[in-house]
């Protein structure tokens, strides 16, 4: 199939054409990352498919199918669903505030029957779609500097504050930064960006000292000096760095990581899976995986570059920004460069929710790619 096929309205709606336009190399990269994750989970469980490895592979398989289904879904359906998804997300966040379950000291989970999930995941997709749609019908001058900017600012602030109140600082930051990235990509004036950065930098220290919960503050302070409390909150960071450092160039060998196999590494199957990888496969393994992540980010960003619709561009770039942030925050945390926040390494870590969110996001990116020549209306007056 050629690009020209996509420019012909009749031709480009055929399923086979759409499927052929999916970035299969990108899918391959994702498979490699998720496969590495499954491999590591097998090792951590003591060379066992259960409880994690098989489940991880299976979930990923389902998510790939879902991603492909979402990829062939018309970009205008995404466009139409943008506000409803955002609205639903915010409603769920309010619901969780009122009736959510408290797990591990934070109110993050919402149960419907036996199924429970974190509404913050819905809003991660929702904020990207809603902002992309909002900016889609807005001229460059407004996006650059105008009173209108209070609308996207409010759209970001509402979910961020709700999530922060749960309290889930990591996710709140992630949503805020994703939203911020879209606003910047849409053409925000450099003056505003610069003053915002200064503002944030000025606010952080007093917030850490006065605005945080005790455990959050402890985490931040521990991060600044992990060895002050090697058995308490510094334990995670220290053990993770030991796992990393002791891996060396080529690692201790598959299944031979003493830090992870003997449970010194906390959350080894989720947030700290990268440390397990580092311990067993060393520098070479880590860099390989980082290159895979880099490739995924690059390909996703290129998709946004190719899109001819502003909605498509911003949506794809927004998802890419989220993904990048996940990788950066988790990586920095594992390497002792950031405080411990509950952000997993996407596709590598065990955990269904994040994988689902990320793969839905990638479905959106592929949809943008497949429909890069489609006309998207300004959508004025239409919510569906």
């Amino acid at each position, binding site marked *: 199939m050629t690009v020209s096929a996509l420019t012909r309205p009749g031709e480009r709606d055929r399923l086979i054409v759409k499927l052929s336009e999916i970035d299969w190399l990108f899918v391959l990269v994702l498979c490699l990352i998720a496969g590495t994750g499954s491999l590591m989970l097998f090792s951590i469980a003591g060379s066992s498919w259960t409880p994690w490895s098989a489940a991880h592979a299976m979930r990923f398989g389902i998510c790939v199918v879902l991603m492909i289904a979402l990829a062939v879904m018309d970009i205008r359906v995404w466009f139409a669903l943008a506000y409803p998804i955002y609205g639903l997300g915010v409603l769920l966040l309010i619901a969780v505030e009122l009736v959510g379950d408290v797990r591990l000291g934070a109110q993050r989970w919402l149960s419907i029957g036996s199924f429970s999930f974190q509404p913050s995941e819905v809003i991660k997709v929702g904020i990207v779609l809603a902002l992309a749609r909002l900016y*889609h*019908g807005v*001229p*460059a001058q407004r*996006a*650059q500097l105008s009173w209108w900017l209070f609308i996207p600012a409010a759209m970001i602030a509402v979910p961020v504050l709700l999530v922060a109140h749960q309290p889930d600082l990591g996710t709140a930051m992630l949503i805020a930064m994703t939203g911020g*990235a879209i606003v*910047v*990509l*849409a*053409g925000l004036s450099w003056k505003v960006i610069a003053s915002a950065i200064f503002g944030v930098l000025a606010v952080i220290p007093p917030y850490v000292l006065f605005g945080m919960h005790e455990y959050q503050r402890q985490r931040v302070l521990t991060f600044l000096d992990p060895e002050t409390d090697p058995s308490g909150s510094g334990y995670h960071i220290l*053990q993770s*760095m*030991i*796992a*990393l*450092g*002791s*891996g*060396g*160039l080529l690692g201790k060998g598959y299944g031979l990581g*003493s*830090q992870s196999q*003997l*449970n*010194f590494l906390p959350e080894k199957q989720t947030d700290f899976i990268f440390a397990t990888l*580092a311990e067993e496969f*060393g*520098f070479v393994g*880590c*860099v390989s995986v*980082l290159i895979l*992540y*880099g490739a995924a*980010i*690059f390909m996703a*960003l290129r998709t*946004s*570059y190719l899109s*001819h*619709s*502003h*909605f498509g*561009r*911003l949506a794809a*770039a927004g998802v*890419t*920004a989220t993904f*990048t942030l996940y*990788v*950066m925050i988790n*990586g*920095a945390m594992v*390497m002792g460069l950031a405080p411990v926040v509950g952000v997993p390494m996407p596709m590598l870590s065990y955990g269904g929710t994040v994988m689902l969110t990320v793969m839905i996001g990638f479905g959106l990116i592929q949809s943008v790619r497949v429909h890069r*020549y*489609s*006309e*998207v*209306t*300004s959508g004025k007056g239409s919510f569906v």
Partner: protein
Amino acid sequence: MTGPAIFFEEVNERQGVFHRRAILLGTFAGLGLTAMGGRLAYLQLFQTQRYERLSTSNQFNFKLMPAPRGVIVDRNGAVLAANRPNFRLLVVRDKGVDAEATLKTLANYVPLDDVRQRRLLKDINSAPRRAPVSVMEDMSWEQFSAISVRAPELVGVTADMGEVRVYPHGGAFAHVIGYVAKVNREDISLTGPNADPILLHPGFRMGKQGVEKAFDLELRGRPGARKVEVDANGREVRHHDEGDITPEPGAEIQLTLDVDVQNRALEVFGEESGGAVVMDCRTGDIICMTSAPSFDANRFVRGLTSAEYRGLAGFERKPMLDKCLSGLYPPGSTFKTMTALAILEAGIDPEARVSCGGGMNFGGRYFHCHKKGGHGSQNLHEAIKNSCDTYFYSMSLRVGPDRIAQAARAFGLGQIFDIGIPGQKRGIVPDRAWKKRYFAKNVDQQPWWPGENLSYAIGQGYLQVNCLQLAVMTARLANGVKALNPRLVRSVGGKELPKGSEAPDLPFLREHIDRVRAGMGAVTEAGGTAFRASQLGLGDILMAGKTGTAQVRNYDKGGSRGKGGVWHLRDHGLFVAYAPVDAPRYAMAVIVQHGMGGSTAAAPRAREIMRTTLLKDPELRARIVKPLPMPEIVPDIELDNIPNPTTIERIAAAAGGPA
């Protein structure tokens, strides 16, 4: 406002800005990933060694193993305290361990009734996490192997082989050797040998009394360690033989005691309460040091039940008190040997006579002699033989307390000896200076009243001694030259401790000592106070001694004069002795608490103990067991004249009958 946003229309500012900024985002992402790569390179390529070390110290652990405790043996090498293997069953409280279900399962293999299960469950739940709780000690081999085979299914259960202290002679050595028991919180200190982490080991036992306590550090040895791989919860995953440190067993301690004499001594006390000490009066070695009644030290190792403890602590005859070292008694008439020495030292003629009419008046009070009718005219020798109180009353007024105290101290009374174990009580040897100190606050009581000399002279009054001191006194008298020191511990880890005979000479004339000894010899001869009770029955080996009957209260208030009635008001019976009379080899002291009489309660027991001691001595045994004279061989038949069988047959045939 704007028209349909078709892609053709949009080669515009928005797209341009987005493209530029998307490149910027990509650049940031690239920089971020590069930074991560750099950080990884720093940690994994340059800091590897440091983190490898940390990782190893996480992974491997050394688990302490207590060393086998040193063995304690008697002077001939007979074992008095040893270790035996103990198969223990331990249950640990940890994640994923259902203690209740585990105990139920274990009840299939070892006897654990419901009551015990409930108590153990409480113990397990109150124990710190991962600290093993002993569910069963001393399992049989069958039980141990049954559990070991099923160990993989039984989470949190371990069966291990430890060592437990055993005292094969039960009670006879309980006071001298003491016992070991679990370490208490108070035993652990922050510094010094008791800060050793081995004290926290569940199998470790610490010496709590006697030799076990005094030589605890020597007996402990050096603990070893097992190199094990552990997980983050400290659970053992694998064992690495090559990294093990083998423990160094504790030092062997040899005592001077003799197991047979010691056992015999406890036996002869029977129901009575008291102490017996036998010393070698040439070397100072303590051959026997028995306190009765005793207790089984093995029970203390296992841990006493509260009923057992109450039984021991509440018994009137105080089984846990060491009556040889910690019990103080008035020496009674056994002290007359010291008074006699003081009389001789004062220059009084031993032939000077005192007439005894059953007592004497002094200071408005009548001091009785133990013989109501009196002994008649007595010199020193007769006074010792008959234990005439009147003679000593009378002479004490000429001697004074300071001379008596001087003699008593020279012979070891009022002294604490370095025998290696704690618990000795000094007692009191009074004199003028002592009284002044003692009544420092009460000036009226400070002067020494002449009347006090009288009771002092017969071993009463303020005077208090322990059984070991009496034995030392007798041993020094029997030795005659050296101020012998007692020795209980012969060697520690093969290194011999100094002998008791490495001591200065006694500051008394040999002639005076011999006179006292002659008196003691007369005590056990016909007519002496202990004639009947002290016949050894060992041929020409005889025992010399001195009886003593010490009153524990003032008889003036009436009552049965200490010869009956309530147990704790009866007189103490004492006897000091040495044998053989001609060449003293062993000296001893026996105190029978509230035994009523020295000649009736103490002397017969002393005789039995002395017999055993003498018979254990090969030299003396040779003297006792004389070989039977060989009968003279008289060759009455010439061998050549024996008729050979054929000749007999011939004779029979000649006689005309069958052979």
